């Protein structure tokens, strides 16, 4: 789950990281008041869940309150990578002498928390990883200990030769680790972590992604989800206990199982079609989930046919078949529906479907090719 910069800054602040003061505003006029409260110069930053805000013009400096209002006016309502800016952060600006990158992830290879630091801060870290990977130091952290002092020394000396700066960086790294572990983050980044000419250390940006599986025990953080910019289908799917990702094609898919759902999309492409979505109804194939799934898919006007691909195993295919027929009736569906059901009672299911306009198939390949053909006919 992504959260806005303002919320990430607040979390970092709570864990003792040095975050400059800021105010969140929704109306340009409020920027002047905010700038006066915090003290100028300030930076006005669009709060949208996309990267590259600065380059896209969503981050602007202001040296006095009136200018802050101007900049806020320019940014609010702006379209940034398809999202309309509805709120901005007015934050105290600091002078920058050095910019570092510090970040944390769960490293899948070592199966441990991993901290990454680089003296090449303020730029796209993926670019640094691609072109100058030697500028990134990765430290695997044992959760039994947290960051050990020798690891802190390695990281600070990698970042700077200045002893005073190193002394100030050490607690920042520890606080970042504590924040990451404390909120069940999958990613926590400060880019850039800044050193001012006077030697102060400030985190002037903040990004945290939260592990979706931890939300049941991160109640406060769970409330920070911003659904307003998410695809409506993805929001509804989550509520219905389904996984859904919207794509651009004409063949809608309803599948039980994420790997099988990905393979269904892949097979559609392989046979010359374009998938309209990824949709996993989970390990079961209960009729109400199929109904929710079809309802979400049918909102997409690009969809010209739907393939239901269910490898039922233990699930009774005749129950699923009846559920699909009910769903079609209830939704008044006209889009052709191709149904593949494999598993217990699949022959009964096929007999049930034979008397309807649903196209019944016995293999995934047959389902995909018939769904593509049905879409072409429209």
């Amino acid at each position: 789950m992504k959260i806005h910069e303002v919320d990430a800054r607040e979390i970092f602040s709570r864990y003792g990281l040095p975050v400059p003061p800021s105010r969140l505003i929704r109306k340009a006029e409020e920027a002047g008041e905010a700038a006066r409260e915090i003290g100028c110069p300030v930076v006005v930053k669009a709060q949208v869940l996309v990267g590259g805000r600065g380059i896209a013009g969503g981050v602007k400096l202001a040296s006095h309150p009136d200018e802050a209002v101007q900049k806020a006016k320019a940014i609010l309502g702006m379209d940034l990578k398809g999202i309309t800016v509805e709120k901005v952060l007015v934050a105290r600006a600091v002078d920058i002498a050095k910019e570092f990158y510090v970040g944390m992830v769960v490293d899948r290879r070592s199966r441990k928390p991993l901290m990454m630091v680089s003296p090449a801060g303020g730029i796209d870290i993926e670019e640094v990883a691609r072109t100058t990977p030697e500028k990134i130091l990765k430290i695997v952290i044992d959760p039994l200990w947290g960051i050990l002092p020798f690891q802190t020394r390695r990281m600070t000396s990698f970042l700077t030769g200045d002893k005073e700066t190193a002394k100030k960086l050490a607690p920042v790294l520890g606080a970042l680790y504590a924040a990451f572990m404390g909120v069940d983050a999958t990613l926590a980044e400060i880019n850039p972590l800044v050193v001012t000419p006077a030697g102060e250390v400030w985190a002037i940006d903040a990004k945290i992604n939260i592990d979706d599986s931890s939300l049941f025990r991160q109640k406060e953080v769970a409330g920070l989800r911003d659904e307003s910019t998410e695809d409506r289908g993805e929001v509804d799917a989550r509520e219905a206990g389904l996984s859904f990702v919207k794509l651009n094609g004409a063949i809608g898919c309803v599948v039980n199982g994420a790997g099988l759902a990905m393979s269904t999309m892949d097979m559609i492409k392989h046979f010359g079609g374009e998938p309209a979505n990824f949709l996993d109804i989970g390990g079961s194939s209960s009729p109400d989930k199929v109904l929710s799934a079809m309802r979400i898919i049918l909102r997409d006007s690009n969809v010209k046919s739907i393939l239901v691909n269910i490898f039922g195993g233990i699930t009774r295919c005749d129950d699923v078949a009846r559920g699909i027929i009910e769903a079609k009736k209830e939704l008044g569906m006209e889009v052709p529906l191709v149904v593949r059901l494999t598993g217990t009672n699949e022959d009964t299911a096929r007999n049930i479907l034979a008397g309807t306009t649903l196209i019944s198939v016995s293999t995934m390949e047959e389902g995909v090719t018939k769904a593509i053909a049905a879409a072409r006919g429209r």
Partner: protein
Amino acid sequence: MSILVDENSRVIVQGITGRDGAFHASQMRAYGTKVVGGVTPGKGGQKTDDGIPIFNTMAEAVAETGANASVVYVPAAFATDAICEAADAGVALVVCITEGIPVLDMVRVLPYLRERGARLIGPNCPGIISPGKCKVGIMPGDIHKRGRIGVVSRSGTLTYEIVHHLTQSGFGQSSCLGIGGDPVVGTNFLDALELFAKDEETDCVVIIGEIGGSDEEEAAAVIASGYPKKVASFIAGRTAPPGKRMGHAGAIVTGGTGTAAEKIAAFEAAGVEVAATPGEIVDLVKRLAPVRSKRT
């Protein structure tokens, strides 16, 4: 021989009185698995409809039954504790079906299990089956057939799809291991390859991977430096858009890495053919391990 589970496995079902635990305990038992007990705190002393004894704790269950494996059908909020309890009770193999366990819990659980000599399979997996011998998990037993193909996969129903094709074409399986769809799992492709390498009943290994992480790439590197069995593979997610979680918590392309294309390239560079569709796996296996199962 098969790997990890066979006729000697004595299995405790953790969460046996829950809806999934009860149903699958019964299914496993019907398949022939030696389900020797179940655990639900507070329900100790009772028996299931099948007559399986229920215990309050794993320690009691293991002491009474001599169990050497357990399978966890416990909700995400309590599953980590169940896994730890099983390891603490001396169980050597813990299979966790549960989806939705926090990643950091898995990070902390793995050393805990290693210290106690326990292996975790999963979480978020269908389990493991050695056809004809033992099934520990939720997979439909009747699509499997005993044979000499080892299958290891990050998926559930996609595994069944491929196993179904293999069985229909006469290629039975020695063991089918679901390692799960989460980003941090107890047993990965490398572990599975190691186990299959030592298994006299496995001639050929089928690896079913997907986007996210670098497990496939690491497996490919090991195979490239010399692996004693034939390997074929299928990778799901060629058409997955970057940055989106495709159902499984671990199925996500981040920072441009973990793409299906990279995994396919890594396997091909290691001499492992990658099927374009699930069904095509049969063609690859035919070329690699032409001996089919004689048993049904």
